[in-house]
């Protein structure tokens, strides 16, 4: 079997062919012409059948053949209009192929083209997906580097602002203090954005490794409760933590899971103006379920899947006014999934939202890693 490469045809597969012929064919790619049957098939783009090659006036190798080819059949292999190869059959005796045999070889050639094409497409897709993966890794690495570079000067800005506010450089007048506090607030917001981008890029680059330890889910939730209680208090929300006393010991990345919970509770408080927010935990069937329920505006069904995607928020003016990066939930979801768990929301417009996540009681291996 010959395959076209540019304007010449190369022997690529042989069956029951003498080593001498294989060697010769491999060293001599064939260009379209009349000197061999392969060349002739390439030139005329049709099946060529020669009953006795030694009697063919145009065949170039008559005298040099020791063990001469007599009957030869060449069948073109077309992909559409493109001649991709030639299928050659030969005999060392004069014995023409029958019509039935020629038809069989033609059918075989057509099928072979399809098979070869499938393999080629498959390889192409593999190569493409490898390239995409590579590009995605570069992107994540770039984001990781960039967020580091962005943070360094921001550290200095926030650091100086705090020193001035603390009166290290002398008493700052009230007006100046207000401005400095604004610099701080905005700086911290910017920092939050950068950290979120970094988190996500690390996760995407597969660089986030969970640090799995034994922990108490009650203590973890208590810690989050204490951290955000002032925020709920400022908004006069009823803020509750309900954890049964007999929860089994957990294993997982406590800090990451409290990051998840902090995000969920932070959102709940942010979006709830009246009523309350409740955190609950339960254990059943080898898993913890943690729920964060609020009496906020609720999330339309159409938005419920979207909010877990990067840079997406529930699409209402209400939400836009609340700020946020739109990355927190995407990160939370990834972290829960890395624990082999699930994060979802149950909500309806006007009747509040409840975010749930489940994680196995004892996570011994990071999901997606051996």
């Amino acid at each position, binding site marked *: 079997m010959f395959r076209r490469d540019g304007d010449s045809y190369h022997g690529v597969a042989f069956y029951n062919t003498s080593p001498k012929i294989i060697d010769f064919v491999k060293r001599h790619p064939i260009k379209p012409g009349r000197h061999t049957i392969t060349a002739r098939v390439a030139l005329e783009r049709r099946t060529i059948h020669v009953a006795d090659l030694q009697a063919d006036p145009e065949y170039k190798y008559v005298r040099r053949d020791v063990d001469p080819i007599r009957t030869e059949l060449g069948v073109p292999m077309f992909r559409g209009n493109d001649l991709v190869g030639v299928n050659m059959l030969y005999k060392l005796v004069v014995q023409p192929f029958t019509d039935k045999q020629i038809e069989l070889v033609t059918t075989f050639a057509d099928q072979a083209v399809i098979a070869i094409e499938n393999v080629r497409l498959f390889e192409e897709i593999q190569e493409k997906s490898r390239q995409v993966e590579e590009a995605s890794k570069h992107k994540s690495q770039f984001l990781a580097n960039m967020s580091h570079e962005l943070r360094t000067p*921001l*550290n200095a800005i926030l*650091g100086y602002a705090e020193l001035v506010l603390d009166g290290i450089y002398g008493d700052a007048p009230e007006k100046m203090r207000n401005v400095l506090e604004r610099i701080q607030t905005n700086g911290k917001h910017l920092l939050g954005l950068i950290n979120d981008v970094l988190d996500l890029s690390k996760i995407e680059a597969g660089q986030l490794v969970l640090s799995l330890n034994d922990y108490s889910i009650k203590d973890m939730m208590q810690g989050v409760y204490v951290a955000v209680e002032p925020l709920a208090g400022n908004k006069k929300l009823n803020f509750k933590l309900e954890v049964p006393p007999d929860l089994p010991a957990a294993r997982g990345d406590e800090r990451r899971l409290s990051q998840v919970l902090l995000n969920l509770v932070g959102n709940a408080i942010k979006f709830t103006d009246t009523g309350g927010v409740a955190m609950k935990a339960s254990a059943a069937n080898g898993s913890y379920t943690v729920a964060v329920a609020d009496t906020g505006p609720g999330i339309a069904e159409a938005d419920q899947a979207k909010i877990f995607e990067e840079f997406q928020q529930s699409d209402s003016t209400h939400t836009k006014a609340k700020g946020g990066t739109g990355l927190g939930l995407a990160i939370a979801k990834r972290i829960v999934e890395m624990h082999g768990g699930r994060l979802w929301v149950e909500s309806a417009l006007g009747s509040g939202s409840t975010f749930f996540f489940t994680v196995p009681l004892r996570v011994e291996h990071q999901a997606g890693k051996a």
Partner: protein
Amino acid sequence: MSKRILVVEDQEDNRQILRDLLGSVGYEMTEAWDGEAGVAAAKEQRPDLILMDIQLPLMDGYEATRRIKADPELKKIPIIVVTSYALSGDDGKAQAAGCDAYVTKPYSPRQLLAKIKEFLP
């Protein structure tokens, strides 16, 4: 006599902030700009505490911390490592290197001071 703190940090702004912060509460601050100089300064000056950045030229903060902690004459000097953002796993590496405490960047000067005072009452 005032307590002496060695700051190993390559960024001028960060050094300036620490100078102003530590000076304001009466600490004496010395500086080294890279990890190798940090280890040398620790040997020479025997400070009361070392603030060690991680991303440093010549030798990173982990290695510098390891070397200081491996020196029997220096290992008692408390080292507070200043790591970059926590998600990178730097905190674990800092602990493995033998630091006594770590703060993550961006640290609030006020919080850093509280941490220093735990070691230098």
